[in-house]
């Protein structure tokens, strides 16, 4: 087997040193009735070529996003990733390194984490950020738990702007960790959600997403003010992180914790994972934060260096008293984010955001002219919701048959909520004028 260096001669020699007659002897602590004599019922080993054939065949049964006019968003977005990003993250020294617990020989990882934390804090308008969570949705759950720790209260209020699957993750955690939760109904663009009225003296936090699940931008300022007046925290969720190149960051609107999905920068769609959860907050809350943190220090020669720090919050030190059970971060996805963001820089990031916004505005204008389409949004970034005269799920299916991936029917994530006629559509810099024209034409045929 190509990945196994030991030869039969090696194995014999090694068993001699150990003083065992066979490898079976080394497994003698396994209860006899649990030892498998033969092989499990699975195919035998394959060479590279055969594995490639099997997996390529599976891949060929899918419609790759890049092969068609593509307008799907709702929490994951297709953006162009510069070639140098994927090259750099595949360097052995990044790809095949462990968590940087030995800082003397992992300064590469530690320094990019420090750069990542700085970039995330900058774009969200917050003071500090951690070294990432698994993804936006689990980061959102952790943010709610952190708010409970900070406020010593146990009740969260979730806005109807929040991605339904993020809300489910929080609900799941709340149920099993015995916290209270109030979930507002879906907040459609063009309607006003009176979340402020739901903030009470026992509220630990309100969770609001902007751009919201339906694409609408949300004014966080009055919500922050109302939350703070009651001693609650505002958690702002940003699943499309490119938006912050164009819109006011939550940190400037009073958010106490900002949770983001960083996939849009540097990371591919990957059918939903791995992604990279962004988690930023205020300096005064750092000891209540979940996840790894990288900090600056000096070495024995006085040179600047970086280490994982404040680990007395973490499970490997504090065990049952830790702030979270999280161990892993999204290391390599952070690196992809950091490199892409470095390439963009101030001007590139802002321009990328403007291009996205222009692409979505153009698409909205084109689709608004299609009979049977009503665009619901007033203020949006690169995603909006339209009301159709037919069920959106059927429309999306028919569009797919015409070679256009036209968005996400609201009913896929919110079945039974009376939203069957709503279609959520995103347009990014990857879409050309021709793509958008093709979408409008196909939609007109389908409706």
């Amino acid at each position: 087997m190509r990945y196994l260096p030991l030869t039969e001669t090696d194995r014999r020699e090694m068993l001699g040193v150990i003083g065992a007659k066979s490898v079976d002897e080394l497994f003698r602590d396994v209860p006899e009735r649990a030892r498998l004599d033969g092989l499990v019922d699975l195919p035998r080993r394959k060479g590279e070529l055969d594995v490639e054939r099997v997996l390529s065949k599976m891949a060929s049964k899918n419609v790759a996003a890049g092969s068609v006019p593509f307008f799907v968003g709702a929490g994951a977005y297709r953006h162009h990733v510069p070639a140098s990003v994927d090259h750099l993250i595949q360097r052995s020294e990044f790809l095949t390194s462990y968590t940087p617990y030995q800082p003397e020989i992992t300064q590469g990882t530690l320094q990019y984490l420090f750069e990542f934390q700085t970039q995330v804090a900058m774009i969200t308008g917050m003071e500090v950020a951690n070294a990432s969570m698994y993804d936006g949705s689990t980061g959102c759950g952790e943010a709610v738990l952190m708010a409970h720790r900070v406020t010593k209260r146990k009740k969260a209020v979730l806005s109807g702007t929040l991605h339904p699957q993020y809300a489910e993750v929080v609900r799941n955690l709340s149920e099993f960790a015995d916290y209270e939760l109030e979930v507002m109904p879906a907040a459609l663009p063009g309607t006003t959600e009176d979340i402020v009225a739901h903030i009470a003296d026992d509220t630990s936090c309100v969770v609001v997403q902007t751009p919201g699940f339906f694409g609408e931008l949300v004014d966080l300022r009055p919500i922050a003010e109302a939350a703070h007046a009651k001693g609650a925290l505002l958690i702002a969720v940003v699943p499309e992180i490119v938006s912050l190149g164009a819109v006011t960051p939550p940190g400037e609107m009073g958010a106490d914790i900002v949770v983001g999905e960083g996939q849009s920068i540097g990371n591919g769609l990957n059918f939903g994972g791995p992604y990279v959860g962004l988690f930023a907050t205020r300096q005064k809350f750092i000891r209540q934060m979940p996840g790894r943190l990288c900090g600056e220090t000096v070495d024995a020669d006085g040179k600047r260096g970086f280490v994982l720090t404040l680990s007395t919050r973490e499970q490997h030190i504090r065990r049952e008293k830790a702030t979270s059970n999280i161990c892993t971060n999204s290391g390599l996805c952070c690196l992809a984010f950091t490199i892409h963001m470095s390439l963009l820089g101030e001007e590139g990031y802002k321009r990328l955001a403007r291009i996205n916004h222009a692409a979505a505005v153009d698409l909205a204008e084109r689709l608004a002219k299609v009979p049977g389409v009503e665009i619901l949004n007033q203020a949006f970034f690169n995603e909006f919701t339209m009301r159709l005269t037919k069920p959106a799920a059927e429309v999306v299916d028919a569009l797919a048959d015409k070679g256009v991936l036209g968005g996400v029917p609201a009913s896929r994530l919110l079945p039974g909520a009376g939203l069957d006629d709503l279609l959520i559509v995103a347009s990014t810099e990857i879409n050309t004028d021709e793509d958008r024209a093709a979408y409008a034409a196909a939609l007109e045929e389908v409706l």
Partner: protein
Amino acid sequence: MSGMNKQGRPTSIAGASSVAHETFTGNRALHLEEALLFELDNPGACGVDLDEPAPFTARLGNFERQGRIGLPSVSEPEIVRHYVRLSAKNYSIDAGLYPLGSCTMKHNPRLNEKMARLPGIGDLHPLQPVKTVQGALELMDTLAHWLKELTGMPGVALSPKAGAHGELCGMMAIRAALIARGEDEARSRVLVPESAHGTNPATAALLGYKVDAIPATKEGRVDLEAFKAKLGSDVAAIMLTNPNTCGLFERDIIDIADAVHEAGAYFYCDGANFNAIVGRVRPGDLGVDAMHINLHKTFSTPHGGGGPGAGPVVFSQALAPFAPRPYVVHGPDGFRLVETAEDAKADGTTPFGRMTAFHGQMGMFVRALAYMMSHGSDGLRQVAEDAVLNANYVLASLKDDLSAPFEGPCMHEALFDDHFLKGTGVETLDFAKAMIDEGYHPMTMYFPLVVHGALLIEPTETESKQAVDLFIATLKDLARAAKSNDKERFTGAPYLSPRRRLDETAAARSPVLRWVPPAPKQAAE
């Protein structure tokens, strides 16, 4: 020559800097100093070429961002050089043996990377119409089948994002089952051995359970009698790692499982060490009810400097009905996804909820599946055998030079304690740091907590005998040096790495977690 020992090593920190040839740049040939990204800022430069969009009427409402963010401006060649230079400051499994016990630093095949980047796999949106992702669902279904066959367990949840997330998933399923039995309130205790990973008690505590530690025997295993004495009608589950964190197989595991079930509780197994037994032992045959599998350990997906991982969970018949959404169903019309509570109701199942948005770590699924298919049933069995053989070879070769607290055979990792360093003035940490100068990443230190000054070595099956022999010889030399008063080789180590020992206390005392622009200088003139 003063300040040098007989191997020509400096004997003090001052000595170290005096032999080093001073350079103008601070670089030392291939050891290159590198500024922070933010210090490379060169306004006007940019690493991408993006055209300004044609004039249009913005629809951002009054949310247009004002002012500078502060991101630096740097060109592509400078960015590439920056990150290549940073990469050179990292140790990696591709560069050398990485014996971190419990972490399983094995070779990461590049075929897996290639497969993950096929456009028909990497470039798929999780919410595309299901009919456009039939191959992706087939891949998930195939992975699920392999995991179930290898573990002998009938249910699986693929979506957990990492090992600890898998633990959370498994324990939630246990709690859901207890709720369904009407025993949730009555069962408030979770038993966790002292030697467990920190994630186990942290997970149990997150779900509101009281964590009760089980002591270990002198043989490094669960004390069966003490464990049985702790069992009762208020126990929800036991969380047990097997092979355990001392690298030993729990001989009484079937008795433990039987006792757990007799008491009406469930058996959660931490599958971090599944690589030791894959293809040779099925956890389902041991009485396990739920077990997470770290795809980044047993199935070679890259550790990536700390992530991303993936932690699918397999379930027994008793817990399978509670496995979370989403899951894939293979029906007569192809593959479909059960995503929402409504879908599950229509499907007649009772999932406890959802762990994450979307469907889990697809990028890791494809890598793991490529690895599994490459090995096959025969190769995976060989993986376990060679991992165990390499570890026992290390244990047998070093037990007289270091000190081993427990009798062998061990499984995939060999545990030593600091008894052999007694009276030398060298501690486990110093010993580990001296390994860095010899070109090795240290083993896991001070874990598990049940032995003093633990040194946990996991060579993995992808190390050749030649590589393991040199590693053994190095550790023998270090042990000899420690015992012969060559203390400076250890207490000041590492001397030769990109950075010397870092001041972690200072880092924690006044945390600096981000770069901030230097304060503007006063106008001098």
